[in-house]
């Protein structure tokens, strides 16, 4: 893989590592070497396996096959403590702080400076924290609790924590997602200084300008596999995007002849401070509109606000011309809106209840007499939709937890369809579902649109977005950055808009302005 093997063995290398979670193969035979004095970029779509790779390097998971090498010697990182001892520091995508403890304690937890009698030297800890923040050029009171810090400040604490390790290997999983331009530049200066001191750094980011500005080599992953590694100087943004996307758009998506009718769901200037702002769109009857973007772009938050689960600060939501009151899922349901949530196990189903009861949950008042649910009515109401959706369940009285992921998703759909919705919002409808059932879910959604239901689909899978949607709305950092008609929606166009670049604006292939160092 590496064209020029370095004279010294790399401080950290992943060799042919594979990892599966149940049926999902998150990583298959990925090799990666992090060399001393080098910043290595890692790119890939959501779900390409980047975070799993980080978990292996951090000792959180152990590879099913393959192994990790430190200085050329195979090691087993049995846990996060083992990885730390091996000199690997990790900045996670999600801050992992202790809200009740002070910022200084958060940084030095388990490694507090000691004085006589193995007591914690609080003064030394405070000074060291202040020094770390000075290096990062920020001022955060070391004594304040972590609770109440903004996401950006939390991320800065995480970075300070990673710095405090004086690690030989630093893994940064999207450290810049919440940072401002100044903070990002400071982080880069620190990263380059660490590189100068011989540290090996893995940098994961969705922002190509950052990857190209910072990294010496870039590895691209796709579908849990390794696609390519090359010197950043030899690569272009276009080349990386092509490698990330790389596959043929599957032809299994159903043919549709969309006939959009009247606007059903109208969202105007929807905003929630710090999460999303100025979000406006319309979904017509019989239309499938996809909300695309990277994880954390605010897509799920928008649909949750539309449905009334989350509050919003500004804007309006209307269904069939009538405004929906905010914060009232029940009102949204009454107006004919259904939401198939992202996390069906937590939010879409009651796992312990039977298949039929789950399928009829939204209609339990219609199916009850004198306030008591009638099992017969429940069973017959459930049978109709479960049959139409071809749910494969041995026994519909068995807990829904016994079904496969795909069939569970169909039960969630059946639940909403039983209420004959005008708008169906589906959030990541095929996540964790095997290929065959995936196609069935797609066929179903397309049929529903054919029957005149307005479908709003949040999806991180580009092929799904392109294969299903009549229109694609792309979100980036809480804003809609592009609205693409089916004919204009290419993988590149969506990816560019999702990473905050302008598909038409920047010259393709040209290095972004940040690339010069």
């Amino acid at each position, binding site marked *: 893989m590496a064209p020029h093997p370095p004279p010294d063995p790399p401080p950290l290398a992943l060799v042919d590592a594979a990892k599966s979670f149940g049926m999902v193969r998150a990583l298959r035979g990925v090799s990666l070497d992090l060399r001393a004095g080098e910043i290595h970029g890692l790119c890939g779509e959501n779900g390409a396996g980047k975070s799993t790779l980080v978990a292996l390097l951090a000792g959180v998971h152990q590879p099913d096959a393959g192994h990790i090498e430190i200085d050329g010697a195979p090691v087993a990182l049995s846990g996060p403590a083992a990885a730390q001892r091996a000199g690997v520091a990790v900045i996670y995508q999600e801050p*992992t702080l202790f*809200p009740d403890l002070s910022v200084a304690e958060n940084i030095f937890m388990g490694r507090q400076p000691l004085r006589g009698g193995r007591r914690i030297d609080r003064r030394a800890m405070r000074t060291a924290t202040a020094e770390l923040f000075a290096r990062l050029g920020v001022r*955060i009171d070391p004594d304040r609790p972590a609770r109440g810090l903004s996401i950006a400040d939390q991320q800065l604490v995480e970075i300070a924590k990673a710095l405090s390790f004086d690690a030989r290997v630093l893994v940064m999983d999207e450290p810049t997602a919440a940072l401002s331009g100044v903070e990002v530049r400071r982080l880069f200066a620190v990263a380059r200084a660490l590189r100068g001191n011989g540290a090996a750094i893995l940098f994961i980011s969705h922002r190509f300008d950052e990857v190209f500005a910072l990294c010496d080599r870039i590895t691209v992953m796709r579908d849990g596999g390794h696609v390519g590694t090359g010197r950043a100087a030899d690569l272009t943004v276009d080349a990386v995007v092509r490698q990330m996307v790389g596959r043929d758009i599957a032809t299994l998506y159903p043919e549709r002849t969309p006939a959009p009718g009247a606007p059903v769901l109208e969202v105007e200037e929807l905003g929630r401070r710090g999460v999303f702002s100025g979000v406006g769109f319309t979904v017509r009857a019989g239309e499938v509109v996809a909300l695309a973007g990277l994880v954390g772009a605010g897509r799920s938050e928008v649909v949750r606000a539309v449905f009334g689960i989350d509050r919003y600060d500004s804007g309006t939501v209307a269904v069939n011309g009538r405004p929906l009151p905010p914060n009232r899922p029940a009102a949204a349901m009454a107006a004919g809106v259904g939401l198939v949530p992202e996390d069906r196990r937590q939010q879409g189903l009651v796992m312990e209840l039977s298949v039929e009861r789950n399928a009829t949950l939204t209609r339990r008042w219609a199916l009850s007499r004198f306030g008591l649910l009638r099992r017969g009515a429940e069973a017959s109401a459930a049978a109709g939709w479960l049959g139409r959706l071809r749910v494969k369940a041995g026994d519909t009285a068995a807990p829904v937890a016994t079904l496969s992921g795909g069939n569970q998703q169909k039960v969630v759909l059946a639940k909403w369809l039983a209420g004959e919705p005008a708008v169906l919002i589906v959030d990541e409808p095929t996540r964790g579902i095997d290929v065959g059932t995936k196609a069935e879910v797609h066929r179903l959604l397309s049929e529903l649109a054919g029957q005149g239901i307005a479908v709003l689909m949040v999806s991180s899978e580009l092929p799904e977005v392109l294969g299903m949607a009549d229109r694609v709305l792309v979100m980036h950092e809480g804003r809609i950055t592009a609205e693409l008609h089916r004919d204009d929606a290419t993988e590149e166009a969506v990816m560019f808009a999702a990473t905050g670049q302008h598909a038409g604006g920047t010259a393709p292939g040209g290095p972004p302005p940040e690339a010069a160092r």
Partner: protein
Amino acid sequence: MSAGSGTGASAPVAEHGGGDVRGARRLRQVRELGILLALALIVAATAVANPGFLSGQSIRDLLLSATLLTILAVGQTLVIVTRSVDLSVGSVLGLAAFATGTLFAAFPGLPVAVAVLAGVALGAVCGAVNGALVAVARVPALVVTLGTLYAFRGVDYWWAAGTQINAADMPASFLGLGRTAVLGVPVPALVALAVVLAAGWYLASYRSGRELYAIGSEPHAARLSGIPVDRRIFAAFVVNGALAGLAGVLYAARFGTLDATVGTGLELQVVAAAVVGGVAIFGGSGTVYGAALGAVLLTTIGSALPVLRVSGFWQQAVVGLLILVAIGMDRILAVRAARRLRGGGPDGT
């Protein structure tokens, strides 16, 4: 390059995490002062109604009664800060007390220190059973210790088999523990004070002590930062069990009459003391000093109400009200502190 979070682009050093940090810290201290204030009010009110309440003997009695609850509350705090709970402490206390008495009955010449150690060790073993089930078998602490509450009590009943141990079975030197006083303070109260100070010092100054808070504050983050979470939780249960054992020994020394029902129902008082003292039931915050104050406050209320001629029926209602007030106060302080830390200003004032 990216959507800024609003920091001035040209400022050399960005101001971060603003908000009134010192104000937020003050609010947390208010919490323990509040308990002290409540304590002072109750003592003052009772003393006005009956000056005898402040006599030396009465205060000694009060301290002696608060001793057991204080020691148990300290141990319970160690467990609660890790986001667990130990409901079996009443049974452990009873078992340890009965074991101590039995030991003296069997070996009349036994040195007192050996008996004390035996009681503490038995408590530690019970704590180890709880800790192993919680930390290794990953069963929720509430369920495990609810089970061992009955299991340990069952062992106690089986062992006692309806018998009773009396003061005559125990040496005078041991029973004297409960009656001797140093500079007017009963020895058991001194022991409790030592336990409070030692635990408070440990929790504040040692890595493993701070790690208990980290575990309770965010278990997932604790694992990611390499803290041996299971080992720490196990240790917290063992220490809590040992302290319950110590409390059992002190019970035996003080009351001299032991049967299988000793310590029944104590566990809820202990949890109440910790909660009233500001130990967050979901872990991560609270001090043993607060828990100890909570224990003293509950005991004082228990002794003050009869003096004030309030019916015993009301005592439980008062304790309940106090818990609700304490929880409400915690909530208000937390909301205010959060607002200050976010930099939203000290809510209008």
